């Protein structure tokens, strides 16, 4: 019952994996009264050997696989992986494809942040924040459904470009959706973010100092909430980000409230970016010439009319040069995601490494919960937007 050396004072609490707020993991908490002495995240419950399975799939087939672990935030990981594959192959997506990728990535960021905020809400007991966020994420799901044909697992970005062009009327509908979200955010603020109870639960809870954030290698909104303005979109711009005007949202407090508010700020920035993307998207092809010219001639008209790509047969067996290596980094919704690929010249990756933001943030569980209250565990957990499958892969 008690940890070594701590006598009989402490109680070991196993939170999860069968617990309403543990997610797919277990938190082993050692509590002294209501105070957490130590908390150890026990991860790996949803490990699905993504990296190993990738070695048995062709480069294209790995795309849906990559999308599964970071659910909600599928597009950003799709983008990261595809960027690495393109570097292996030496192809580049045409500009319009880059902008479309950025569009979906930012839509997905809004979706993922709402998802995280909703989970955080229910962890604090606000069923309204949960229901609202989960309801409003449907807006971005609906728009993505029109763009990609799927609700969440889009598999939209492929080596060399994207699979579909904007459907007719997309920009107008999106503008309405964005205005709606902008109208809604103040209501979220009144009922949840600025609710005195929420503030009492989050302000000053789980404070991550700037130094610790850097030392522990934290990424994403959790890092920026500790005052470090690091964002891959700004530090190593990719896709259409170099041409977009956006701000890296940071806060200095480093507490759970700051982490939540950074996400809210990022939703606003994503809304701005989507507006810019839809206003300034360049015309042109959406698939690299190298592959576009291999589309069977009888489909060319179809592709032009519908804006939907027909795959050339080569996509089924892409073979990057032997020994090629590539790394890519993207700012996924939960933080920096890194992909590393090695080719042995065959149609399947020799090695695929996927480092997800949740994997890098898991260290925070034991760091931030030392000395907190039992009730702070879900408050901090939620503020990290930690997603066990994403970390376990």
């Amino acid at each position, binding site marked *: 019952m008690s940890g070594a050396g701590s006598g009989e004072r402490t109680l070991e609490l196993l939170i999860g994996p069968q617990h309403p707020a543990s997610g797919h993991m277990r938190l082993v908490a050692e509590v002294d009264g209501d105070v957490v002495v130590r908390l150890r995240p026990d991860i790996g419950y949803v490990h699905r050997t993504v990296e190993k399975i990738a070695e048995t799939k062709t480069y294209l087939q790995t795309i849906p696989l990559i999308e599964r672990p970071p659910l909600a935030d599928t597009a950003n990981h799709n983008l990261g992986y595809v960027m690495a594959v393109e570097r292996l192959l030496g192809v580049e997506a045409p500009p319009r494809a880059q902008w479309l990728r950025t569009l979906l990535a930012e839509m997905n960021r809004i979706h993922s942040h709402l998802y995280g905020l909703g989970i955080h809400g229910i962890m604090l007991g*606000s069923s309204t924040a949960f229901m*609202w966020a989960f309801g409003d994420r449907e807006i971005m799901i609906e728009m993505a459904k029109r763009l990609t044909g799927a609700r969440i697992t889009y598999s939209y970005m492929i080596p060399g470009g994207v699979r579909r062009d904007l459907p007719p009327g997309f920009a107008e509908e999106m503008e309405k959706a964005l205005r709606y979200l902008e109208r809604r955010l103040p209501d979220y603020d009144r009922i949840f973010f600025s609710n005195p109870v929420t503030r009492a639960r989050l302000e000053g809870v789980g404070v991550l100092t700037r130094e610790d954030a850097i030392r522990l290698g934290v990424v994403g909104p959790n890092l920026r909430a500790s005052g470090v303005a690091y964002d891959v979109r700004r530090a190593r711009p990719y896709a259409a980000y170099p041409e977009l005007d956006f701000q890296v949202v940071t806060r200095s407090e480093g507490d759970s409230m700051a982490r939540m508010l950074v996400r809210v700020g990022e939703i606003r920035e994503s809304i701005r970016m989507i507006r810019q993307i839809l206003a300034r998207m360049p015309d042109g092809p959406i698939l690299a010439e190298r592959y576009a010219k291999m589309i069977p001639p009888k489909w060319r008209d179809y592709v032009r009319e519908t804006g939907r790509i027909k795959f050339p047969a080569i996509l089924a067996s892409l073979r990057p040069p032997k020994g090629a290596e590539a790394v890519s980094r993207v700012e996924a919704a939960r933080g920096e995601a890194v992909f590393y690929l090695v080719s042995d010249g065959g149609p399947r990756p020799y090695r695929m490494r996927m480092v997800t933001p949740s994997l890098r943030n898991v260290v925070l569980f034991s760091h931030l919960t030392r000395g907190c*209250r039992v009730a702070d565990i*879900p408050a901090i957990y939620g503020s990290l937007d930690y997603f066990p499958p994403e970390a376990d892969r």
Partner: protein
Amino acid sequence: MGALGWILGLLLSPWVFVPLIYPGLVSAFAVLLFIIWFERKLAAKVQRRFGPYYVLRHLGGATQLVADLIRYLFAEPIIPEEADALAFVMGPALLFGLTLLPVVAIPVSGTFYAIRSDVSLLIVLALLTLGAAMTLIIGWAGNNKFSLIGGLREGFLSMAYEIPLFVAALSMAAAYGTLDLVDMVEVQAETAWGVALNPLAAFVFLVISFLATSRFPFEISEAESELVMGPFTEYSGIMYGLTMGASYLKYYVLCLLFSIMFLGGWEPVPPQLAAVPFGPGVVVFAKALALMALGVFLRAVYPRYRVDQAIRLAWHYLLPLSVASVFVSMGAAWLGLTGA
């Protein structure tokens, strides 16, 4: 006919009617079935959903709770091997029963009551405290760490809220110059409602009734995301149903008390109801139900406080405020506002 008349007479006699029908068991059950459904409907509307819907669609799923009750009745009640079986089984029944007990001292009207006592307010308050002890026992009996913590939380909270609750209630006794609930209503009828005489006491009493019955933002001892279901984690079937109902029941009793102490009780009695002996009770019932609706609505507004925050709130704010409310009452009495 004679036998029927005799049974009817028995049923309508206050000492049977009060505990059994109103405000006792039958009405309490009706309140439970209604208010939990209503809570879900309110929360659903705020959350832009429909809530219960498919059980009796044309009435907005009004019978959802009946369906739930039937399900609870037929679900297997599981007694964990390591649990203290006797305490585990008796706990919910006792909790439910004890929580309902205070209604015996609550008058239905100026002439219809089971117990008329000079100190009926004290009786109600004293009986109200019994439930919390049962929650502690339940939390311990399940032999589950979450239950234990939940039970302890309930214990800490009850320590913190009982005193300001008593002080706030007694401040009204000071204002009305009586501890008899019937007299309290009569004083209010002559002067003004308690909520106007001493809004501070009303506020403290209201907040504590949320705190004492696990209403949001004080849904702390059950706190799903922390303690699964707090003291009631190990329960299933109808035993769980009873434990869940108990907090609503306590809230019901507190709302009845609030209506009598602060909202003028059965006054004003509509003339149509004056003829029936327990008719005025309908007015109290309606007031209590409206109050309950307010409390359950808060579920849609608030997250939950941490236990230490709620305890601090009780000791640092509610206790001083309740003491202040005594002075407000004294002031009101001194100014002659209460007619006492």
